[in-house]
């Protein structure tokens, strides 16, 4: 490709579980010009994002042609119940069915109401819409919720009741209203209702974030289109994201996979992203992240949102190393701050750890390796004597208890080992010290022995205090009477084993429950699957050799990937590719995706009243319905219309010259889904 004039600079931002990364990239040459890292601020992600936008080196802000973010905001807000309050109005749903199948907990809001109406699976009105009841209910709950979600039975086939209810509600109140049929053409009624409710609860949350990002961009004089990554790794403009925030679920891991592909230029590979908190797997096929057709799940909620097919495990560089119940070393799933980092911030910690190695055995228990420390002071209005509230008077964080305030007071003097803290607070167990809420609100951090510390000891990654790590490891090994070198090897072996296990589970789609390795190899455990797995890893059998081979290369992403993954690739007999800048591939992925819009239209028969005769065919294009006598005419019309709409929406969403691919599915019953997918590179313009 010929490059004319100045290269186009693009800024990608990713908010991960531990870090928020930004990367400035020359789009055409894929050259990373600058990168910047900041801690993710879970309590308000916009703080971390503002930090990286302000911190990254930018020579000429005017040269930036696009900014794009991938964010865990939607996923976090759902998981932590931080979304806005939503009333979900269900039209034509059977209340008894919902309660019989225990699906009320699925609906993602406690405020749901049933109304008469809805359609059947041929789009015929099942019951007249009870509009007066809906309006009376809306007037009653208007002040108690922030948004309304509507889902009508079989609305993808016939959205008439959703539309009529929407028009009437918009006539009497100003709350934002989300319609189920505009988010999903799938027929699953509960998933559609859940998706609509989640989308409604996230509208203001995501809009606030984008406004914060826009402000930070403005302060740095960056005037460029703002894009947001979807859960399948594609991009949408901030205008679209503001309407369909639910589509950003899982966008972080999807962006990593796209970034890995972009930097490595490989079109078929397994992407393994090793972060601080989790390791995520995704598969690239034909240059695209594979997408799960089932809809993304978050916590207990099943949605009908398309997302990348991902596998996430609680293992990362900052996974806590402890002694497990099975008398072996255990890695994760909890994430803690590495002692190397803590001692680098607070030199006194190193001396304390050194002193620990000199103590007698019974006074050097491993709980002395666990530290709590103050991350930040409670500000005015938070954590004081009164609870903090938002501008509508709702409680954001409850006031701190006396015990919590005592703990903060204690930690003002610096980090302290947990046994000391417990003694001073006069409690026996950590659970009594009131630390959980303080950790959740990011006032207090936990530190301990991590894989990152072991990397410091071996000198493979040593940016902080390696001496502190060495002392801590010495104390840990002394207590359990194990050779430090050997135990370190055990940790690495265990981590490789966990990652290989995740890869096998992810790709095979079959669960494999591991148990004690030695019992499996000795034959005490008769399970063949487990034996096969362990024998392939450790070649224990004298006569039978088994092995696992991954037919695709592994693309390693994330700072610790170069350390954790060579063993994994060796065990799986494949190649490990670590692209340059693989440490920030997640942020690269935020800008490397294409802009994609998918339009799906339904074609289904129009039946006579007795249901015995086909009178013609409907083309249902969201709100518009067209009628045809012949199926062929209906299909031809649906193809043309979906293509036209996909292209229009892609251009509106910021794509330059999108290309369209068509797909047709039939789900039986003479019903067809005509799907047009328009994909283009983002338009880099001002």
């Amino acid at each position, binding site marked *: 490709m010929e490059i004319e004039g100045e290269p186009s600079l693009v800024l990608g931002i990713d908010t991960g579980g531990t870090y928020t990364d930004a990367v400035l990239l020359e789009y055409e040459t894929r050259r990373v010009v600058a990168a910047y890292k900041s801690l993710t601020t879970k309590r308000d992600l916009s703080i971390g994002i503002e930090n990286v936008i302000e911190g990254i080196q930018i020579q000429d802000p005017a040269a930036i042609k696009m900014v794009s973010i991938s964010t865990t905001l939607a996923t976090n807000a759902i998981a932590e119940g931080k979304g806005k309050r939503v009333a979900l109005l269900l039209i034509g749903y059977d209340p008894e069915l919902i309660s019989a199948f225990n699906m009320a907990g699925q609906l993602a809001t406690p405020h749901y109401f049933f109304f008469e109406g809805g359609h059947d699976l041929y789009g015929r009105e099942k019951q007249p819409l009870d*509009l*007066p009841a809906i*309006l*009376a209910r809306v*007037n009653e709950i208007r002040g108690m919720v922030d948004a309304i979600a509507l889902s009508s039975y079989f609305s993808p086939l016939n959205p008439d009741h959703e539309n*009529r209810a929407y*028009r*009437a509600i918009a*006539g*009497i109140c100003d709350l934002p209203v989300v319609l189920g049929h505009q988010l999903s053409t799938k027929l699953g009624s509960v998933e559609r209702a859940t998706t609509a409710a989640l989308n409604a609860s996230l509208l203001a949350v995501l*809009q606030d974030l*984008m*406004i914060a990002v*826009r*402000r930070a961009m*403005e302060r740095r004089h960056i*005037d460029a*289109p*703002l894009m947001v990554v979807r859960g399948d790794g594609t991009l949408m*403009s*901030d*205008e679209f*994201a*503001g309407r369909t925030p639910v589509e950003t679920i899982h966008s972080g891991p999807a962006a990593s996979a796209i970034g890995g592909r972009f930097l490595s230029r490989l079109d078929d590979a397994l992407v393994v992203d090793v972060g601080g908190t989790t390791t995520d797997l995704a598969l690239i096929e034909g240059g695209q992240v594979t997408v799960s057709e089932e809809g993304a799940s978050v916590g207990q909620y099943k949605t009908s949102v398309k997302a990348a097919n991902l596998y996430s495990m609680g293992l990362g560089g900052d996974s806590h190393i402890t002694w497990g119940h099975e008398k072996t070393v255990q890695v994760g799933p909890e994430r803690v701050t590495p002692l190397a980092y803590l001692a680098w911030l607070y030199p006194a910690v190193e001396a304390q750890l050194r002193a620990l190695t000199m103590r007698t055995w019974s006074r050097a228990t491993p709980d002395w390796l666990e530290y709590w420390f103050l991350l930040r002071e409670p500000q005015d209005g938070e954590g004081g004597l009164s609870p903090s509230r938002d501008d509508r008077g709702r409680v954001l964080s409850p006031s701190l208890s006396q015990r919590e305030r005592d703990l903060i007071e204690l930690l003002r003097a610096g980090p302290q080992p947990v046994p000391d803290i417990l003694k001073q607070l006069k409690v026996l167990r950590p659970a009594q010290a009131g630390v959980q809420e303080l950790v959740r609100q990011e006032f207090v951090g936990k530190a301990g022995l991590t894989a990152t510390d072991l990397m410091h000891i071996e000198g493979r990654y040593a940016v902080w205090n390696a001496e502190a790590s060495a002392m801590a490891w010495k104390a840990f090994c002394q207590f359990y009477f194990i050779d430090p070198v050997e135990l370190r090897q055990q940790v690495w072996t265990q981590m490789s084993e966990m990652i290989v296990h995740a890869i096998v589970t992810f790709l095979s789609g079959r669960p494999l429950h591991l148990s004690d390795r030695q019992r499996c190899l000795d034959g005490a455990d008769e399970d063949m699957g487990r034996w096969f797995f362990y024998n392939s890893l450790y070649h224990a059998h004298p006569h039978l050799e088994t092995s696992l081979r991954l037919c695709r290369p592994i693309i390693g992403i994330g700072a610790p990937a170069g350390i954790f993954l060579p063993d994994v690739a060796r065990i799986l007999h494949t190649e490990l590719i670590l692209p340059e800048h693989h440490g920030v591939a997640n942020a690269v992925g935020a800008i490397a995706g294409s802009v994609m819009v998918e339009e799906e239209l339904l074609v289904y028969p129009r039946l006579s009243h007795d249901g015995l005769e086909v009178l013609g065919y409907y083309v249902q294009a969201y709100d518009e319905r067209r009628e045809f006598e012949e199926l062929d005419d209906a299909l031809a019309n649906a193809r043309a219309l979906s293509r036209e709409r996909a292209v229009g929406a892609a*251009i*509106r969403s*910021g794509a330059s010259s999108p290309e369209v691919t068509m797909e047709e599915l039939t789900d039986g019953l003479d019903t067809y889904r005509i799907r047009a997918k328009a994909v283009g590179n983002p338009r880099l313009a001002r």
Partner: protein
Amino acid sequence: MELERIDTKRAYERIRERITILELAPGSVIDDGQLAENLGMGVVPVREALKLLAHENLVIITPRFGLYVADVNIPDLERLSEVRLALEGLSARLAAQRATADDITVLEALRTEQANTPAKDSRRLLDLDHKFHQAIARTTQNGYLADSLERLFGLSQRLWYLALPQLGFLPSAVEKHLELVEAIKVGDGDRAEQIMSSHVRDFCDQVRRVLAGR
């Protein structure tokens, strides 16, 4: 093609509300930097929003004197009333001819809500009145008419806020609405037009008196 920016939309809504409820006084100078600061928003979206509001005659942009909030005065009121009188009347007539059962349901829900709102809650009552007029305009199924009326209503609502301290909310308006819904329900276009016109005329007369007394 410039994409619609999410922050511009929000800035537009907030500034429009401040102008309507006179928090930004008629005729006052607008400092866009200061305004952005007050709203907790960026300067770029605030400027974009002000351009949109200039289009609606709520903000005046002059090359020499900068930006200011459009003033209100009696001549403006008269011209505004001429157009509203004609168009609101037309709106009511067409509504009576074209109303569907859904439209009637909405009008009745608004009327019930209005009856249940205490007289001292004038903000809410004004909001309901606005929604009532919007609902009738929508019932005409004429988008051009609804758009024109919406713009005029925005200007006229500001006058109402100006007169509000002297006027209070008009209890007669609630009764008028009741009669109007009945007329639309039975499809009596003449009667609907007549009620609406006198409703608008009353309003203008009252505001004129307050403005003249200033």
